[in-house]
């Protein structure tokens, strides 16, 4: 849009982040939903644990939509009469734990490896990059399937495997940023003042890389959630009696023609969570990019 002759100056009003959030309705909705999920995660098993495991054969396969048997049965009952709503809330804990743990693990390990690769350059750097190539070039699902086959499919192993498949992205991004920052003067200044390599990495490079990583993290959360759900659906991820939304869809599949809601609602839960993650990630990307921020900072039509 701009040629050398049109340089539009935009005065940044410097709005706080939460006001920028409110400007974007979808991002606000996404953030609220994720907050709600966090509440379910923390308080779910406490308050709904009993309802999720109480059998009530009178309401077996109860269709959703009626409040006759109490508000807990609003989403219907499963094959053993347990409240779908309660089960969904309780299952959120495992689902979210696995997704979050895997993502954070990937970010930390990938970030560290990336910083090393970027800063150390030749030799170690190359080996690390080839390692990332291997991981990225192979279908992540197949990789996860094989590893979980050879090791046992426990929750811990599942988290580790998922983290490994997401490593390369954090690795590359961190390395790229480190390479760019390495050239900048302030790093030389820090080293001239006696800061060793690790000091420079931690105090100077780390903080600059963090915002990009955060944006990737939110997208990754969605990706990992989908991956775990797929694995659990296929019977290779979470095993009963542990429960996640993905496994609930698999279990509900057997009753598709009689009780469609058993497979349907867990999928909706997954989709709402991943959708929120993606929408929030888009918002974060706009906010972190100074050239795009003005879209949110521009006054609304009825601003004073």
């Amino acid at each position: 849009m701009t040629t050398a002759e049109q340089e539009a100056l935009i005065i940044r009003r410097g709005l706080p982040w939460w006001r920028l959030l409110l400007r974007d309705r979808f991002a606000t909705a996404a953030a609220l939903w994720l907050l709600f999920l966090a509440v379910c995660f923390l308080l779910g098993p406490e308050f709904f644990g009993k309802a999720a495991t109480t059998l009530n054969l009178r309401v077996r396969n109860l269709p959703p939509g009626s409040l006759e048997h109490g508000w807990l049965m609003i989403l219907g009952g499963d094959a053993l009469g347990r409240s779908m709503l309660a089960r969904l809330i309780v299952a959120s804990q495992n689902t979210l734990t696995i997704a979050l743990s895997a993502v954070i693990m990937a970010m930390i390990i990938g970030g560290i490896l990336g910083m090393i690769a970027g800063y150390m350059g030749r030799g170690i750097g190359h080996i690390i990059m080839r390692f990332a190539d291997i991981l990225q070039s192979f279908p992540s699902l197949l990789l996860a399937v094989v590893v979980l086959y050879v090791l046992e499919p426990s929750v811990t192993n599942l988290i580790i495997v998922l983290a490994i498949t997401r490593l390369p992205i954090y690795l590359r991004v961190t390395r790229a940023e480190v390479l760019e920052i390495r050239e900048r003067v302030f790093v030389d200044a820090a080293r001239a003042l006696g800061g060793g390599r690790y000091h420079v990495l931690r105090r100077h490079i780390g903080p600059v890389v963090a915002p990009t990583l955060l944006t990737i993290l939110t997208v990754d959360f969605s990706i990992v959630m989908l991956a775990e759900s797929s694995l659990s659906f296929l019977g290779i991820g979470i095993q009963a009696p542990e429960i996640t939304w993905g496994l609930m869809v698999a279990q509900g599949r057997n009753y598709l023609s009689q009780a469609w809601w058993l497979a349907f609602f867990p999928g909706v839960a997954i989709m709402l969570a991943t959708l929120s993650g993606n929408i929030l990630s888009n918002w974060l990307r706009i906010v972190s990019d100074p050239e795009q921020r003005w879209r949110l900072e521009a006054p609304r039509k009825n601003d004073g």
Partner: protein
Amino acid sequence: MGHFLGQRALHSGVALLGLIIAVFFLVRMTGDPTDLYLPIDASLETRKEFAQKHGFDQPATTQFVVFLKDILAGDLGYSLRKQRPAMELVLQAYPTTLKLAGVAMSLSIFLAIIVGAVAAYRPGGVFDRISTTASLAGASAPDFWVAITGILLFAVTFRWLPTSGVGGFSHWILPIGVLMLRPFGLMVQVVRASMMGALSSAYVKTARAKGVGEPVVIFVHALRNACLSIVTVAGDLAVGLINGAVIVETVFGWPGVGKLMIDSVIQRDFPTVQAIIMVTATAIFLMNVLIDLLYVALDPRIRHQ
């Protein structure tokens, strides 16, 4: 150009080798390999024989050489449940998957080019909104759930389509539709972004100043430049399609490599699983080489490096 191709082939080759090494170590470092390669009820003698033949009692390097020899000879073990060479099973299943993935990929790219190009031309218009919604949906929707919901709606409720299985045209609709979600969503964003870049470039301005008509400007001048980004992403797309194929084949009962993989895992048939990994890795390596060649053909700047 030669340097470019050579370096890329080297990288892909190293990745392939790395994967083979990883599988090798994974199997041998996590317990008794005979547990994986032989049936549970195999006798001690059978196990000892097998171990000797494949050098499990030898040092790691010798083992690796034997391992490589086996692979190059095409011997990837015997499927435990089918009593046939694992390689045979895999090669038999691949055509189904290739057909499925091939159609999904071609359709995704074709539609993404049209929708993405129009979206880039009229930002904020109908097509732009379609493309944003599509990519958000593609990235967020659990494909297994969409598949099941699709079956529920179109097969069970409306009875328009069959619930599963291979067959005529109607058997393809749901599987391809589900498989296309993510690739289309991804590609349409890539096309849109690169077309927007191309359409605001100086050479498009020159073309218009020459009096070239808008359709030619969009679909010749701009698109030809956007092709490079499309080809770059096509590789990732194909790898993602394999992931999708695993789910789609399992849900719809198509006898492809994805379904074979899951069945083999559940039935503890490791040789087949290993064979699938090897063949897939090789296929990806070949595909990467192909994409690099395509790159050279499309970008004259690389040709003359």
